[in-house]
């Protein structure tokens, strides 16, 4: 059903228009003068020099989580690449030397130009091996090939970049929970 928007009833002085123009001009001039005298009022961020913080759960560039020994948590099950609507994840699996794990990724590539940043890969992963919490949302390169990031780039992060209550990140080499996790890992009680 069509929505009927009633026309505003303008008073005589509003219909004369010049008075309303003067009021509008006063508003804009007020802003201009206040901003000239007090430059702190700007709501903008001077972008390259200062950056806005995005929330922790913002879906940005991906990363691969690490085991305490530094190997990827990924078991090359292809769940993420199957779930991916953009088909941007390319995995080549190989046999894992670890007898508890069947496979590991020989190559793990994500084409960021194809990626739609939907987060389905994170949802699909049974091992919490892929996450999108890097907060790295400005992706710049001068050729298309450089947007295809490989396993090394995906695992190039430090636990210090993540909050202390992020257990999975802190169990990676360099994290505050790493020593305990490595002990468990070698004694076979690590999950």
């Amino acid at each position: 059903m069509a929505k009927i928007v009633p026309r505003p009833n303008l008073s005589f002085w509003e219909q004369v228009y010049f008075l309303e123009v003067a009021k509008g001009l006063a508003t804009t001039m007020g802003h201009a003068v206040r901003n000239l005298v007090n430059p702190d009022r700007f709501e903008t961020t001077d972008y390259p020099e200062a950056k806005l913080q995005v929330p922790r759960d913002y879906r940005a560039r991906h990363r691969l989580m690490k085991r305490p020994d530094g190997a990827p948590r990924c078991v090359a099950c292809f769940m993420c690449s199957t779930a991916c609507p953009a088909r941007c994840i390319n995995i080549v699996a190989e046999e894992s030397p670890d007898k508890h794990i069947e496979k590991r990724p020989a190559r793990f590539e994500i084409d960021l130009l194809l990626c739609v940043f939907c987060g389905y890969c994170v949802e699909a992963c049974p091992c919490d091996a892929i996450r999108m919490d890097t907060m790295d949302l400005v992706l710049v390169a001068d050729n298309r090939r450089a947007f295809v990031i490989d396993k090394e780039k995906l695992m190039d992060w430090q636990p210090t970049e993540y909050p202390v209550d992020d257990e999975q990140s802190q169990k990676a080499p360099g994290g505050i929970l790493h020593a305990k996790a490595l002990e468990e890992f070698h004694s076979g009680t690590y999950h």
Partner: protein
Amino acid sequence: MDFLVQNFDVILTLLKPVLIFALLFQILPLLVLAERRGAAIIQDRPGPNRAAISLPGGLKLRGFGMVFNIADAVKLLFKESFTAPFAHKWWYILAPAIPVVTAILTPAVLPWFAPIVHQPDGGALQVVSGQIFDANVGLLLLFAIGSLSVYGVVLGSWASNSKFALLGGLRASAMMISYEVSMGLAVLGMLLIVGSFSLTDIVEWQGNHTWGIVVQPVGFLLFLVAMFAECNRNPFDVAEGESEIVGGFHTEYSSMKFMLFMTAEYLHMIVAAALIATLFLGGYHLLPVGGFGTVWVRQHIGPVLGVLLALGGAGMLAFAWLITRRRAAYLRKAHSDNASRNREYTVYAVVFALLGLAHLGAGAAAWLLLPVPTAVIAAGGLAIFPWWASLLTAVVQFSVILVKTILVCGLFVWVRWTLPRFRYDQIMALGWKVLLNIALVNLLVTAVVTKLVK
């Protein structure tokens, strides 16, 4: 020196056009800058401030965004000058030149300072007019030339052979012709009061009595609105419309030809502002009260120069203060380029503070050191002042009208970033049903009152 004094009129007549055009069109880059930064500060943001000239020693000069002008010009100059294959080539190339030429021609008939009367020892009386071309039908000539600028828009849009361009051109031409009627009628009131078409007479009348805005407030408002329409400015910028007709009349234009259209738009704004200042804001006269005309300024040239220089100096000091506040605001934020900004803003603040102090000093010197000029009364009651007093008065008067022009240009920018644009039928209704009627009533009332008073 003797040669200079003897041939005063010849030298001044030769120098006049160069100085007037050079100084008047220096407003153009300022205006482009004011448009960007003005829009920014009205909308609570800092505006473009990234393009910079890097000097050795880590000093980056951004020039308050002025460097963007250079970048724009370089970009437009080096872009491919593309001519659409379906365009009528000859007219297509000719069209951008027309508005620029008309805009550059019109300041020639505006009076920029009062006529200088000079008599060298034992020589003939020399009179140097304040106009480049002193026509006693100055106003008609102005409107005749100014109205030609619409041909550039129409010709450009037709020659592009593109529907969108043609639509933009048609809208612009219909609007400009409609508002020219109200514009002419708005000025007629002023002409009735003064009783002359000569721009010099109009300005001199304003100096002897009062500014045009005081006796013709309605005429001023009508003329202002008509001038916004003539310049294709907001809220009357129907010639362009990204959302409805791609670009407007310049859809098919690029590089230098596009730049000429843009330049012409801003030149027209400057000329319109100068015209408004001349007709309604007292032209080159200082005060909106009678009795402070050219002769008074010449008699008191020392104090007048002193006060004006001091005012300019105070303005520069205030600007330096604003710069230091801006610098402090940057330093309060933890930015990666704070060191470079600090250096740059310190340089600006020091330069403007020194300039302001120099102006204050020069003002004091002018007041204290300049002798009181003594006028010689020539035959016919004409007061002849020493050449230096007349020349300094001309400088003062030219500065005054230049400042008025800049302020009216500022009004153009201010209005653009305040008002939303009209719908096309609203523009036509306003032009023909409202402005025309008000202009006619204003003319009638003015005519009756003028007849009764005289």
